């Protein structure tokens, strides 16, 4: 497992470099001024959250297809990482919206759909905690993940479909190279960070599953204490 440590170290190095350039070298934006620097955290977080949910979708299909516990563990890991990054995304968005739009939150389609995405996948995690036999839990959470994933493309395309306050698609051509360099480095760093967290979380899920499988079954009914006999 030494490669996971390497992955984490690489993630931290890329994040450090990206943010150093983003905070110190890159110029302030013409319209938004210094606040534009949240961009170097916000875009990578959004990308990583969506990537994690996409991995979860693949894991869900795998779990339904093969029924192997490995897929189920990957699903647990990726949904949880996705929810954490999605939560961070909403917080950063709020912090950015306050100085630029003068409100912590607006009911803009992209904000709304991102919030829905988080609630939907949190629901999957709640479901996992409440279902008991591991096999049934695997099937149920895979089904719920697949249905919840319907929202992910909606989030991505929301800026295209509706007129939104949130800014639309940017591409490599529309972003200045001075800003593009820290952005791409931070995206790489955050993706690697997400990946290493995902690997750790999946391993924990796998260990928990093994422990659950090895545990002896509970007796069907509680054994009544025979108080009379012991007297």
């Amino acid at each position: 497992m030494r490669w996971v440590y390497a992955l984490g170290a690489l993630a931290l190095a890329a994040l450090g470099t990206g943010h150093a350039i983003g905070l110190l070298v890159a110029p302030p934006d013409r319209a938004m001024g210094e606040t534009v620097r949240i961009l170097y955290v916000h875009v990578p977080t959004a990308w990583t959250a969506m990537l994690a949910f996409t991995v979860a979708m693949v894991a869900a299909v795998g779990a339904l297809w093969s029924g192997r516990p490995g897929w189920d563990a990957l699903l647990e890991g990726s949904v949880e990482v996705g929810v954490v990054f999605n939560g961070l995304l909403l917080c950063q968005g709020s912090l950015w919206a306050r100085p630029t739009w003068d409100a912590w939150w607006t009911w803009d389609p992209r904000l709304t759909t991102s919030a829905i995405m988080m609630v939907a996948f949190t629901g999957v995690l709640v479901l996992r905690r409440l279902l008991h036999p591991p096999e049934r839990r695997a099937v149920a959470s895979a089904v719920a993940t697949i249905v919840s994933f319907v929202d992910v493309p909606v989030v991505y395309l929301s800026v295209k479909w509706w007129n939104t306050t949130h800014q639309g698609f940017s591409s490599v051509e529309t972003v200045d190279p001075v800003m593009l360099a820290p952005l791409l480095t931070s995206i790489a760093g955050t993706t690697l960070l997400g990946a290493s967290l995902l690997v750790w979380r999946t391993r924990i899920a796998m260990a928990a599953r093994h422990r659950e499988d090895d545990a002896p079954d509970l007796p069907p009914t509680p054994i009544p204490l025979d108080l009379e006999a012991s007297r």
Partner: protein
Amino acid sequence: MRLLLALVRKDLLVGWRGRARLVGLSTYAVTLLLLFSFALGPDSTTLHEHAPAYAWVAILSASTLLLAQSFQQEVEGGALEGLLLLPVSPTAMFYAKALANLLLLLFLALVLLPVSVVLFGLRPAGSPVALAGVLALGGAGLVAPGTLYAALTARVKAQQVLLPVLLFPLVVPPLLAAVKATSLLLEGDPMHQVGTWVGLLATFDVLYWSLCGVLFGRVVEE
């Protein structure tokens, strides 16, 4: 097809035999409508403006109770095992159950509509056929994921909490489209936007009905 109709008939019959529950559910939904007017105060323009939204939220919260019941009955008597023994594909079972739930939900909407017309002072402008169509499409968007999740959570003790937690995020897009389409139909549509919203609603209906139909088999088979 005959099997499907037989299954729908069975569910409707169960609904009819337990009509006291259906009446209770309608009363619950009407009470919700009253609560909206109490919560917002007697400002008739606000109430009038948002009436379709209140009606749909009432339908949504009543529908979670309806959906949860629809599978609890099956699980309680071990009827689900019996159904699974029949030579019926789970996909057909899903469509039958969802169709029956949709019909029961539309009955509920039929009760709520006149009440909201009276309470919120609506003057229906659009054609009743179009309104019925939007109600059916909106109901379909709620019922398909609802039936799947009701089956999924039928054996969980905390179903009453879990079902809304899982279902509500999913039904936001169809619900939003249904509310917009309904309010445009009721209050006139100068910009001809109804088509777009109905299109969005229909897209989600097709998506959910096909996806949930495929996945249902895996949910009930163990």
